[in-house]
Protein backbone atom coordinates (compact mmCIF):
# COMPACT_ATOMS: atom_id res chain seq x y z
CA UNK A 1 0.00 0.00 0.00
CA UNK A 2 1.54 3.34 -1.06
CA UNK A 3 -0.69 5.69 0.90
CA UNK A 4 0.66 6.56 4.34
CA UNK A 5 -2.13 5.75 6.74
CA UNK A 6 -0.50 5.96 10.14
CA UNK A 7 -2.05 9.34 11.05
CA UNK A 8 -5.45 8.08 9.93
CA UNK A 9 -5.00 5.10 12.24
CA UNK A 10 -4.11 7.36 15.19
CA UNK A 11 -7.01 9.68 14.39
CA UNK A 12 -9.34 6.68 14.26
CA UNK A 13 -8.06 5.41 17.62
CA UNK A 14 -8.59 8.81 19.23
CA UNK A 15 -12.09 9.01 17.74
CA UNK A 16 -12.93 5.50 18.93
CA UNK A 17 -11.73 6.46 22.41
CA UNK A 18 -14.39 9.16 22.51
CA UNK A 19 -12.72 12.40 21.49
CA UNK A 20 -14.80 14.88 19.52
CA UNK A 21 -13.73 17.10 16.63
CA UNK A 22 -13.65 19.97 19.12
CA UNK A 23 -11.19 18.05 21.28
CA UNK A 24 -8.83 16.63 18.63
CA UNK A 25 -7.82 17.78 15.18
CA UNK A 26 -8.33 14.59 13.23
CA UNK A 27 -6.04 14.55 10.22
CA UNK A 28 -4.29 12.21 7.79
CA UNK A 29 -1.06 14.07 8.66
CA UNK A 30 0.61 13.75 12.06
CA UNK A 31 2.19 17.17 11.61
CA UNK A 32 -1.23 18.83 11.45
CA UNK A 33 -2.54 17.62 14.79
CA UNK A 34 0.88 18.05 16.41
CA UNK A 35 0.97 21.72 15.33
CA UNK A 36 -2.56 22.17 16.66
CA UNK A 37 -1.66 20.46 19.97
CA UNK A 38 1.38 22.70 20.40
CA UNK A 39 -0.95 25.71 20.09
CA UNK A 40 -3.14 24.13 22.79
CA UNK A 41 -0.11 23.77 25.06
CA UNK A 42 0.93 27.37 24.37
CA UNK A 43 -2.55 28.61 25.26
CA UNK A 44 -2.87 26.14 28.17
CA UNK A 45 -6.20 24.99 26.86
CA UNK A 46 -7.66 21.83 25.43
CA UNK A 47 -7.34 18.19 26.41
CA UNK A 48 -4.58 17.29 23.95
CA UNK A 49 -1.40 19.31 24.51
CA UNK A 50 1.96 18.71 22.83
CA UNK A 51 5.08 19.11 24.94
CA UNK A 52 8.80 18.60 24.35
CA UNK A 53 9.87 15.14 25.40
CA UNK A 54 11.66 16.42 28.51
CA UNK A 55 8.44 17.87 29.97
CA UNK A 56 5.98 15.00 29.96
CA UNK A 57 6.46 11.44 31.15
CA UNK A 58 4.32 9.46 28.68
CA UNK A 59 1.31 7.68 30.09
CA UNK A 60 -1.42 5.53 28.61
CA UNK A 61 -3.42 7.39 25.97
CA UNK A 62 -0.68 9.90 25.15
CA UNK A 63 0.77 10.13 21.66
CA UNK A 64 4.49 10.04 20.93
CA UNK A 65 5.75 11.73 17.75
CA UNK A 66 9.02 10.84 16.08
CA UNK A 67 10.82 11.57 12.85
CA UNK A 68 10.92 9.11 10.02
CA UNK A 69 12.86 8.80 6.79
CA UNK A 70 16.07 9.90 8.47
CA UNK A 71 14.84 13.41 9.17
CA UNK A 72 15.62 15.25 12.38
CA UNK A 73 12.86 17.81 12.78
CA UNK A 74 12.67 19.16 16.31
CA UNK A 75 9.99 20.66 18.54
CA UNK A 76 10.66 24.18 17.27
CA UNK A 77 10.14 23.00 13.70
CA UNK A 78 6.92 21.26 14.65
CA UNK A 79 5.66 24.46 16.28
CA UNK A 80 6.06 26.37 13.02
CA UNK A 81 5.14 23.83 10.34
CA UNK A 82 2.09 21.78 9.48
CA UNK A 83 3.39 19.58 6.68
CA UNK A 84 6.43 17.33 7.10
CA UNK A 85 7.10 13.62 7.40
CA UNK A 86 6.77 12.14 10.86
CA UNK A 87 5.03 9.41 12.79
CA UNK A 88 2.97 9.16 15.95
CA UNK A 89 1.80 6.21 17.94
CA UNK A 90 -0.49 5.70 20.92
CA UNK A 91 0.91 4.76 24.33
CA UNK A 92 -0.90 1.64 25.52
CA UNK A 93 1.31 0.52 28.39
CA UNK A 94 4.10 1.74 30.64
CA UNK A 95 6.27 -0.34 32.92
CA UNK A 96 9.65 -1.81 33.77
CA UNK A 97 11.40 -4.74 32.13
CA UNK A 98 14.93 -6.10 32.19
CA UNK A 99 16.12 -3.15 30.08
CA UNK A 100 14.54 -0.51 32.30
CA UNK A 101 11.48 1.71 32.14
CA UNK A 102 9.52 1.78 28.93
CA UNK A 103 6.38 2.93 27.18
CA UNK A 104 4.74 0.54 24.72
CA UNK A 105 3.06 2.13 21.73
CA UNK A 106 0.71 0.94 19.03
CA UNK A 107 1.08 2.60 15.65
CA UNK A 108 -0.32 2.18 12.19
CA UNK A 109 1.59 1.72 8.94
CA UNK A 110 4.61 0.38 10.77
CA UNK A 111 5.96 -1.92 8.05
CA UNK A 112 2.48 -1.62 6.55
CA UNK A 113 0.94 -3.11 9.63
CA UNK A 114 -0.27 -2.22 13.11
CA UNK A 115 2.55 -2.90 15.53
CA UNK A 116 3.70 -2.46 19.07
CA UNK A 117 6.96 -0.67 19.74
CA UNK A 118 8.96 -0.18 22.90
CA UNK A 119 10.11 3.34 23.76
CA UNK A 120 12.86 3.58 26.37
CA UNK A 121 12.20 5.88 29.32
CA UNK A 122 14.67 7.20 31.88
CA UNK A 123 14.38 6.73 35.63
CA UNK A 124 12.04 9.74 35.88
CA UNK A 125 9.76 8.38 33.17
CA UNK A 126 10.76 10.75 30.38
CA UNK A 127 11.60 9.52 26.87
CA UNK A 128 15.24 8.70 26.22
CA UNK A 129 16.16 10.55 23.03
CA UNK A 130 17.72 8.56 20.22
CA UNK A 131 20.01 9.63 17.36
CA UNK A 132 18.12 7.98 14.51
CA UNK A 133 14.63 9.29 13.68
CA UNK A 134 14.62 11.24 16.96
CA UNK A 135 11.49 11.86 18.98
CA UNK A 136 9.83 15.26 18.57
CA UNK A 137 7.10 15.57 21.19
CA UNK A 138 4.58 13.93 23.46
CA UNK A 139 0.94 14.85 23.01
CA UNK A 140 -0.49 14.63 26.48
CA UNK A 141 -4.02 13.26 26.61
CA UNK A 142 -5.88 14.93 29.46
CA UNK A 143 -9.30 13.66 28.49
Amino acid sequence: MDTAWSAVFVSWCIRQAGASAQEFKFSPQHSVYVHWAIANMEARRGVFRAHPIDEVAPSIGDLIQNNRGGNSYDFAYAAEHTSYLSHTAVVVETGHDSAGRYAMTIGGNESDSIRRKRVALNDDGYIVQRPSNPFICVIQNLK
Partner: protein
Amino acid sequence: MNLPLSKNQVTKGAAWLHANFGAEIAQAVSGKPYSASIVCAIACKETGFIWIGRTNMPAAVLLPLLVGDASGDVAGHPRNAFPKNTAEFRAEFGDAFADDLIAESNAARALRGLPPAHIVYKGYGIFQYDL
Protein backbone atom coordinates in the same frame (compact mmCIF):
# COMPACT_ATOMS: atom_id res chain seq x y z
CA MET B 1 -9.51 11.85 33.20
CA ASN B 2 -5.75 11.49 32.96
CA LEU B 3 -3.77 13.57 35.42
CA PRO B 4 -1.16 15.90 33.91
CA LEU B 5 1.54 14.80 36.38
CA SER B 6 2.30 11.43 37.90
CA LYS B 7 2.54 10.82 41.63
CA ASN B 8 6.32 10.45 41.28
CA GLN B 9 6.60 13.77 39.47
CA VAL B 10 4.53 15.58 42.11
CA THR B 11 6.54 13.97 44.92
CA LYS B 12 9.75 15.09 43.26
CA GLY B 13 8.31 18.55 42.64
CA ALA B 14 7.19 18.98 46.25
CA ALA B 15 10.64 17.93 47.48
CA TRP B 16 12.26 20.51 45.21
CA LEU B 17 9.87 23.23 46.38
CA HIS B 18 10.54 22.45 50.04
CA ALA B 19 14.30 22.31 49.45
CA ASN B 20 14.35 25.69 47.73
CA PHE B 21 11.43 27.58 49.25
CA GLY B 22 10.58 25.67 52.41
CA ALA B 23 10.97 28.64 54.75
CA GLU B 24 8.93 30.95 52.51
CA ILE B 25 6.17 28.37 52.12
CA ALA B 26 6.03 27.74 55.88
CA GLN B 27 5.79 31.48 56.54
CA ALA B 28 3.12 31.93 53.87
CA VAL B 29 0.80 29.24 55.25
CA SER B 30 1.31 30.06 58.93
CA GLY B 31 -2.11 30.74 60.46
CA LYS B 32 -3.85 30.06 57.17
CA PRO B 33 -6.55 27.43 56.57
CA TYR B 34 -4.48 25.82 53.80
CA SER B 35 -1.33 23.77 54.13
CA ALA B 36 2.12 23.77 52.56
CA SER B 37 1.07 20.69 50.60
CA ILE B 38 -1.73 22.67 48.92
CA VAL B 39 0.72 25.40 47.96
CA CYS B 40 3.05 22.80 46.46
CA ALA B 41 0.16 21.14 44.62
CA ILE B 42 -0.87 24.45 43.04
CA ALA B 43 2.70 25.16 41.95
CA CYS B 44 2.97 21.69 40.41
CA LYS B 45 -0.36 22.08 38.66
CA GLU B 46 0.42 25.50 37.22
CA THR B 47 4.01 25.14 36.04
CA GLY B 48 5.31 21.74 37.14
CA PHE B 49 5.51 20.46 33.58
CA ILE B 50 8.18 23.10 32.94
CA TRP B 51 10.36 22.78 36.02
CA ILE B 52 9.94 19.28 37.46
CA GLY B 53 12.07 17.81 34.69
CA ARG B 54 14.64 20.57 35.01
CA THR B 55 15.38 20.63 38.73
CA ASN B 56 19.06 20.19 37.91
CA MET B 57 18.98 23.90 37.07
CA PRO B 58 19.41 26.39 39.94
CA ALA B 59 16.06 27.69 41.15
CA ALA B 60 17.21 31.28 40.66
CA VAL B 61 17.83 30.56 36.98
CA LEU B 62 14.66 28.60 36.50
CA LEU B 63 12.18 30.94 38.18
CA PRO B 64 12.42 33.84 35.70
CA LEU B 65 11.70 31.38 32.91
CA LEU B 66 8.33 30.34 34.33
CA VAL B 67 6.25 32.54 32.08
CA GLY B 68 3.56 31.19 29.81
CA ASP B 69 0.05 31.41 28.35
CA ALA B 70 0.03 32.56 24.77
CA SER B 71 -3.76 32.63 24.57
CA GLY B 72 -4.99 35.38 22.27
CA ASP B 73 -1.85 35.06 20.18
CA VAL B 74 -2.10 31.49 18.89
CA ALA B 75 -4.62 30.15 16.43
CA GLY B 76 -7.88 28.86 17.83
CA HIS B 77 -7.55 30.33 21.31
CA PRO B 78 -9.08 33.81 21.54
CA ARG B 79 -8.97 35.56 24.89
CA ASN B 80 -11.54 37.81 26.54
CA ALA B 81 -9.57 39.20 29.49
CA PHE B 82 -7.12 42.06 29.08
CA PRO B 83 -4.86 41.89 27.23
CA LYS B 84 -6.79 40.10 24.51
CA ASN B 85 -3.49 39.74 22.64
CA THR B 86 -0.04 41.24 22.31
CA ALA B 87 -1.27 44.04 20.06
CA GLU B 88 -3.71 45.22 22.72
CA PHE B 89 -0.99 45.13 25.37
CA ARG B 90 1.38 47.08 23.13
CA ALA B 91 -1.28 49.72 22.41
CA GLU B 92 -1.91 50.20 26.15
CA PHE B 93 1.62 50.06 27.55
CA GLY B 94 3.88 50.93 24.63
CA ASP B 95 6.66 49.29 22.68
CA ALA B 96 9.39 49.34 25.30
CA PHE B 97 7.42 47.42 27.95
CA ALA B 98 5.96 45.06 25.39
CA ASP B 99 9.39 44.31 23.94
CA ASP B 100 10.82 43.65 27.42
CA LEU B 101 8.10 41.10 28.11
CA ILE B 102 8.55 39.55 24.67
CA ALA B 103 12.25 39.10 25.45
CA GLU B 104 11.26 37.31 28.68
CA SER B 105 8.84 35.16 26.74
CA ASN B 106 11.48 34.21 24.22
CA ALA B 107 13.98 33.23 26.93
CA ALA B 108 11.34 30.87 28.32
CA ARG B 109 10.54 29.59 24.83
CA ALA B 110 14.20 28.85 24.15
CA LEU B 111 14.41 26.79 27.35
CA ARG B 112 11.48 24.72 26.16
CA GLY B 113 12.66 24.25 22.58
CA LEU B 114 10.18 26.68 21.07
CA PRO B 115 11.15 29.16 18.36
CA PRO B 116 11.18 32.90 19.16
CA ALA B 117 7.84 34.66 18.74
CA HIS B 118 6.44 38.15 19.09
CA ILE B 119 4.16 37.20 21.96
CA VAL B 120 3.57 38.79 25.35
CA TYR B 121 2.77 35.91 27.69
CA LYS B 122 -0.08 36.40 30.15
CA GLY B 123 0.95 34.13 33.04
CA TYR B 124 3.91 34.89 35.32
CA GLY B 125 5.82 32.96 37.93
CA ILE B 126 5.52 29.55 39.48
CA PHE B 127 1.82 30.18 40.25
CA GLN B 128 1.14 31.80 36.87
CA TYR B 129 -0.32 35.05 38.14
CA ASP B 130 -2.22 36.78 35.37
CA LEU B 131 -0.61 39.76 33.73
